[in-house]
């Protein structure tokens, strides 16, 4: 099914919010909103029925992986070739593991948790935010990184005129089809 994208360019936050409220009220849910900064008022409207970003899952998994790998590597290497230093050691003998030199490994584990967690978070952001993008999306306008707000409505061609009208009434400086 062919869809048409109608882009409204706004100069103000309140007008943008008004347009969004209107659009939602009329059942337009397929929207892309461009803002130079994250704006509370706009987010409020958009996030109303969305779940919390899943980035935090990435962070959790990354952190846990970090901790696990740190303990794995430190304990394993101590056991495969455990040297005694300063009277402390951790060795695998037929009777089991002897020695007690675990505390330092918590430091490694902490650092690895942060490292893996940090990277996982960024990966999460990139993946979920559909980045990186090689080509600009059709409705993007360079002004959106400066001082303009954009609302792109994806709708059936037959409803385009209504959207046009709606956006203009809400206070859009400019409305165009893409």
């Amino acid at each position: 099914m062919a869809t048409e994208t109608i882009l409204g360019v706004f100069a103000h936050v309140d007008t943008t919010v008004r347009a969004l409220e209107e659009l939602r009220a009329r059942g337009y849910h397929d929207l892309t909103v461009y803002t130079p900064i994250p704006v509370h008022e706009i987010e409020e409207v958009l996030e109303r029925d969305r779940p919390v970003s899943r980035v935090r899952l990435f962070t959790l998994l990354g952190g846990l992986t970090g901790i696990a790998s740190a303990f794995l590597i430190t304990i394993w290497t101590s056991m495969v070739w455990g040297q005694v230093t300063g009277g402390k050691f951790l060795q695998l003998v037929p009777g089991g593991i002897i020695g007690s030199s675990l505390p330092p490994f918590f430091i490694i584990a902490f650092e690895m948790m942060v490292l893996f967690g940090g990277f996982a978070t960024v990966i999460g952001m990139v993946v979920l935010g559909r980045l990186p993008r090689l080509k600009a999306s059709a409705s993007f306008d360079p002004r959106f990184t400066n001082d303009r707000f954009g609302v792109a409505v994806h709708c059936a061609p037959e409803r385009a005129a209504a959207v046009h009208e709606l956006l203009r009434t809400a206070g859009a400086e400019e409305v165009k089809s893409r």
Partner: protein
Amino acid sequence: MSDGHSTPPTFADVNRDVLRTLEPPGNLYFAWMCVVALLLAGFFFAWAGQVWWGMGMAGKRVPQMWAMYITTFVFWIGIGHAGTLISAILYLFRARWRTSIYRAAEAMTIFAVMTAGLFPLIHAGRMWFAYFLLPYPNQRYLWPNFRSPLVWDVFAITTYLSVSTVFFIVGLVPDIAALRDASTGWRRRIYAMLALGWEGADNQWRHYRRAYGLLAALATPLVLSVHSVVSWDFAMALVPGWHSTLFAPFFVDGAIFSGFAMVLVLGLPMRHFFKLHAYIQEKHLDAMGKLILVTGLVLTYFYLCEIFTSLYSGEHIEKASLFWKVTQNYAWALWTMYFCNCVAPLVLFSRRARTSPVALYIVSILVLIGMWFERFNIIVPSLGHDFYPYTWGIYYPSPTDTMIVIGSFAFFFLLFLGFIKVMPSLSIVEVKETIPAPMREKAHGH
């Protein structure tokens, strides 16, 4: 944004003002670059000599097997604290005044940690085997010693550098997108690549905001841990004057103290030359001044604790070490440190001093000097008068160590000066967040 504006800047003003800092630089900038490049050449020359002829080219000896390199290493790590502290901890605390300085501070952090990262290499007797410290499967079946504080350092510093860099880049992405949209030609292509196709769409923002918050939450304990780990290089050793449980908070506080001083040392000239008075306002200076004052007072408390524990311990060797430091060959360094770190910041009790760029600048420079000497005093005099009287001795810096220490500043400034001309040194997005969003209704209200 120009001076004399009585109204707050608009979004467009912000873009314009920030982009202006990226205009081709003037002669002053070029002159600075020349000085920096010259010093850097000296730095590499000294380093090459040291590798070729041996560590003896630096003034180290028994008992001071460590001296100015580790001093400077800890100094730079300390400097590297302010950036992530401002961007992560103050972000979580929603301290709005951070926005105008955090980008520069973050860049400073990364460059300071990079500079610091050179020192373990410079310092190692056989730096061509420094890769022995990395845990990777190898044909010798050998692994590093995870009980050694130096290996903790490797982990802490690489993690800190990586996470700080990631944090920094994530913060930069929307700004680079703005740069992309304002530039042309090859620059545009490069910026477009770096911006990852950022458009400011709602889907991007919602993950971005969440990720940024999580990164800040991860970076916060990291900031505190890094200098704690560095402090354990000393605290885990037996040397009188090192072996103390006080060291982790003591080092962290000192790091924040010196980090803020460095932020001011870099930020005040930027404010002046780039005419950013509208963004870096008096209230920002005031807040920074207060932080320096508070951390300075805390540091003074730690100094007193250090002296007290040494005296109260009844431990002869500890006491002998303390008395020697206070009264003998290195007393000048110790008293310089006390003056710079404990006395000089007291000026900031005055609001006039806190809002005067000149006063702040002088105090910051003194604080940096003092904090360098703090590390010097921890390392050199403590080692010089430790357990064994046979080997007590005095360390004299050689031309090689001196050149390398000075050169490290050149390395840092080269990176920083380069950065301010290719990347926005103020966060476009976050500055915009602090100014009122454009509202038609309210605009009418005026």
